């Protein structure tokens, strides 16, 4: 078979990747083994092939030894194929004469038996040498990069990303599942360690979203389908009906007042059920969009079909529209930022802590609302029976650091528990007990905040409470919630009666994470958060090019880190967009015209209708701009005339042979 007449001169390089590869795979052995292969002119191993000196090594060899094929055995081609293609290009060689061998992700990192790993690496390298002989020079293809960006999730991360992109003049679609943006941060009272008010710093940014002409805000909406690839995503978004026209509603609240329900009856989501709302409501005063919404599950009109519809007549602007239906919108974007946040651990999974049993056991998020001046009690910390707590126990690590719940440390609980301790103390002057396992305060001014709390005469008891109970053993415990705990520093068992228990619940992936991962085809790490491309060097990228992640959907983190990631995502998306085009792999199919019999078998196979039949020539042809390079036609073509670049039959067949037959 023809391999471009010219003599084939292969250079082989195996990377140590520090000890990542070399610690498992015997790189010297592989280098020696490959050196003996036909056409191999140079065979080397090197500490870091992707480093500048590593790449320069290849370039120098190409020039000195007139190499015309390069095989690099290192990490996944999905990570560094581009890097090494550039290396070839810089040395004047067509970049597609490169073949990579994935000896890190597919060998060193997954096998512990060094001998077997080396043997596997040998086979993989041999296959690449076999294959690269059949590689052909190809032209890179550029496709224009769509300039718009989709941001999924309207919490602080999504808001921040959106504003950065919008200020750079990019059109941003901000899609939020809930009726308002703001996310968890909007529910908080103060933020640690500075204790500035969450609303004061968040609401201006929320309004900015509304004001910004470059931001298209779709609340009450969900992404349901994503097609295409980087630069050219086609996204389908489902907009659930609000039954109130956002463009007309000014949030005056007349409709709410006139609702057939005289009293608010349904648990208010924003206040976590600590207060009630009507079927028509505005989530909270600063909600964006500041528009009412009708909950069709509780509204009489939707439930029974008959209602006087007082709201309809109360609205002077005729904003209420009971006929709204869910709509599907299709948009084109170049990049996607996922900022879907987190959900809190459900403490009912551990009935020992009495959440849902004893009314005075609260989650930390509920306490945020209780303390909040615009919360259900207008900032007054009172228990469900209206009394003020005189003693409060804050139990850390609920749902965190446990094989039974979530294995990870949720990173923010220590700090927010300190914050809540401080605020509760200020609000109630109660005796406050913090029960912690380890106090984790890494962060600027965080340790200092802990120090401040120690001086506030808050109790810090090192030990995890095992149980919250109302069964008293001594008189002073009667009517209280008793916390039994080992004070591990004093090595004694203590029973501490309190009026109120705060469970510092951990953070976990939000409900739809898995579904969304599926839709976007991005990975999840073991704990169920979105997987970043690299934990250190690519913390906001994913393995799907053009899709970025920011905030707690990547893992628990506090507001400063979330905002930093949001900014990073926006910048990385912008860098891609501003390049204006995106280079795609020239992996398209083409027909060996002369030999096509016009059997038409391939036409219906193509998912992109890129293949058509030329009636005059009675043969098929491929429209390469439509072709996305799946190669299905090539596998189908019964007479082998449909070729997929970079994945030609002889390339793959030789790779197969190389994996099985060596030495």
């Amino acid at each position: 078979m023809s391999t471009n007449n010219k003599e084939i001169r292969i250079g082989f390089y195996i990377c140590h990747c520090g000890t990542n590869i070399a610690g498992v795979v015997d790189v010297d052995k592989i280098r020696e083994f490959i050196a003996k292969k036909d056409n191999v002119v140079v065979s080397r191993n090197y500490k870091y092939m992707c480093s500048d000196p590593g790449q320069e090594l290849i370039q120098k060899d190409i020039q000195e030894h007139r190499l015309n094929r390069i095989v690099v055995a290192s990490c996944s081609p999905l990570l560094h194929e581009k890097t090494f293609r550039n290396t070839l290009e810089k040395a004047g060689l067509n970049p597609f004469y490169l073949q990579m061998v994935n000896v890190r992700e597919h060998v060193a990192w997954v096998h512990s038996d060094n001998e077997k790993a080396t043997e596997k690496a040998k086979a993989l390298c041999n296959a690449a040498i076999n294959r690269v002989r059949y590689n052909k020079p190809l032209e890179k293809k550029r496709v224009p990069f769509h300039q718009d960006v989709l941001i999924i999730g309207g919490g602080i991360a999504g808001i921040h990303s959106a504003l950065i992109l919008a200020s750079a003049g990019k059109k941003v679609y901000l899609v939020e599942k809930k009726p308002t943006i703001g996310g968890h941060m909007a529910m908080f009272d103060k933020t640690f360690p500075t204790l500035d008010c969450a609303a004061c710093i968040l609401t201006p940014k929320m309004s900015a979203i509304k004001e910004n002409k470059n931001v298209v805000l779709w609340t009450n909406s969900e992404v349901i389908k994503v097609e295409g690839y980087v630069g050219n995503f086609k996204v389908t978004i489902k907009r659930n009906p609000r039954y109130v026209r956002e463009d007309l509603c000014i949030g005056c609240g007349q409709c709410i007042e006139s609702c057939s329900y005289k009293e608010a009856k349904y648990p208010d989501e924003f206040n976590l059920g600590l207060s009630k709302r009507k079927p028509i409501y505005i989530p909270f005063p600063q909600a964006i969009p500041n528009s009412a919404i009708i909950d069709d599950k509780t509204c009489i009109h939707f439930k029974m079909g008959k209602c006087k519809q007082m709201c309809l007549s109360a609205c002077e602007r005729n904003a209420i529209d009971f006929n709204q239906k869910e709509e599907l919108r299709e948009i084109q974007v170049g990049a996607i930022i996922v900022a879907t946040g987190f959900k809190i651990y459900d403490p009912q999974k551990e009935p020992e802590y009495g959440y849902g049993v004893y009314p005075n056991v609260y989650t930390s998020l509920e306490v945020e609302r209780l303390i909040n001046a615009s919360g259900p009690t207008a900032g007054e910390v009172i228990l469900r029976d209206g009394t003020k707590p005189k003693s409060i126990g804050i139990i850390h690590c609920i749902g965190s650091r446990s094989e039974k719940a979530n294995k990870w440390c949720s990173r923010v609980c220590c700090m927010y528990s300190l914050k809540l301790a401080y605020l509760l103390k200020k609000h109630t002057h109660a005796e406050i007990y913090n029960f912690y396992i380890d106090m984790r305060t890494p962060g600027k001014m965080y340790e200092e905040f802990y120090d401040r709390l120690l001086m506030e005469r808050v109790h810090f008891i090192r030990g995890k409470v095992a149980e919250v109970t109302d069964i008293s053993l001594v008189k002073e415990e009667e009517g209280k919630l008793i916390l039994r705990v080992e004070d591990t520093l004093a090595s004694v068992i203590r029973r501490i009666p309190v009026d109120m228990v705060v469970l510092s619940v951990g953070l976990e992936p939000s409900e739809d994470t898995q579904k969304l991962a599926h839709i976007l085809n991005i990975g999840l790490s073991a704990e169920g958060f979105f997987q970043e491309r690299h934990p250190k060097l690519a913390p906001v990228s994913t393995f799907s090019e053009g899709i970025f992640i920011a905030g707690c959907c990547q893992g628990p983190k506090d507001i400063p880190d979330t905002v930093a990631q949001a900014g990073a995502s926006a910048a990385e998306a912008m860098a891609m967009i501003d390049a204006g085009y995106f280079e795609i792999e020239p992996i398209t199919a083409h027909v060996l015209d002369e030999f096509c019999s016009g059997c038409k078998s391939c036409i219906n196979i193509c998912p992109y209708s890129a293949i058509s039949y030329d009636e005059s020539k009675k043969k098929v042809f491929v429209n390469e701009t439509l072709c996305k390079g799946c190669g299905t036609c090539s596998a189908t073509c019964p007479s082998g005339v449909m070729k997929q670049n970079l994945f030609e039959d002889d390339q793959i067949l030789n790779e197969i042979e190389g994996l099985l037959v060596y030495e």
Partner: protein
Amino acid sequence: MKYFYYPGCSLRGMGKAYEESWLKVCQKIGIHLEEIEDWNCCGSTTYLGFDEIKSLVLVSRNLAMLEKEGGSEVITPCIACYYLFNRTNHNLRDYPQLKTETNKMLQEVGLTYSGNVKVRHPLDVLVNDGWMEKISQNIEKRLERFKAVCYYGCQLLRPYCEFDNPKNPKNMDILVSLTGVDVLDYPLKTKCCGAIITSNIPEKGLELVYVLLKEARKRKADFIVVTCPLCQFNLEFQQEKIMKVYEEDVGLPILYYTQVLGLAMGISLKELGITRCLTLTPEFERSLI
């Protein structure tokens, strides 16, 4: 319906009444029990403090004999036996080395054990094998005048319990309710009574029993229903002392759930072993008839 049955030592000793009432109930509703022939003691948790392998062997001998008879399930009413049997299965499964060694020993007398016999408790069988209807059909006098709390104890629920929610078990409540008894909410139902300690070093464990009794009294229970012979004994035998130490009347009769079922089925107190109860006051006895 036939089940293999392992009574265990306690049901022949201080838990005699448990076996008596259990057998009566089975007879009444048509459960046929086949006792494992020449069964030996499971060793209970005490033996675990002596030798791991031998404790596995003790249990395995019984189950190997059962397997030889073609059985694949066994009912163990005593909760200590229930735990030990389950533990044996788990350890044989989790540690292949232990399984090999255990079987080596059993082979001395021509036995082998697979580790797969399913261990059942009456609370599992009665509720999950469809016997509740049979029970209801056999109720002759409903015990509506009584209030009671159900107390499950430890080893039935921890660490192995596959048939009920170990943090909030329901099966005994359900069964006792069938008799018309008003089963009260009892948050202490999974707590430890400290039996093994209390019965040996009484001064250490009084408090546990006191709290259990006090809470039941507070809730106006007429008696406590239990499932463990050791709990039954412990809760009974400490009462006198507790009332002295705490100067508080917290005395309550302690009955097995099988006794309650039997009572409602019209079986006599004597047949159900209720007369063996240490806390059986004449008034209570009268109220039962």
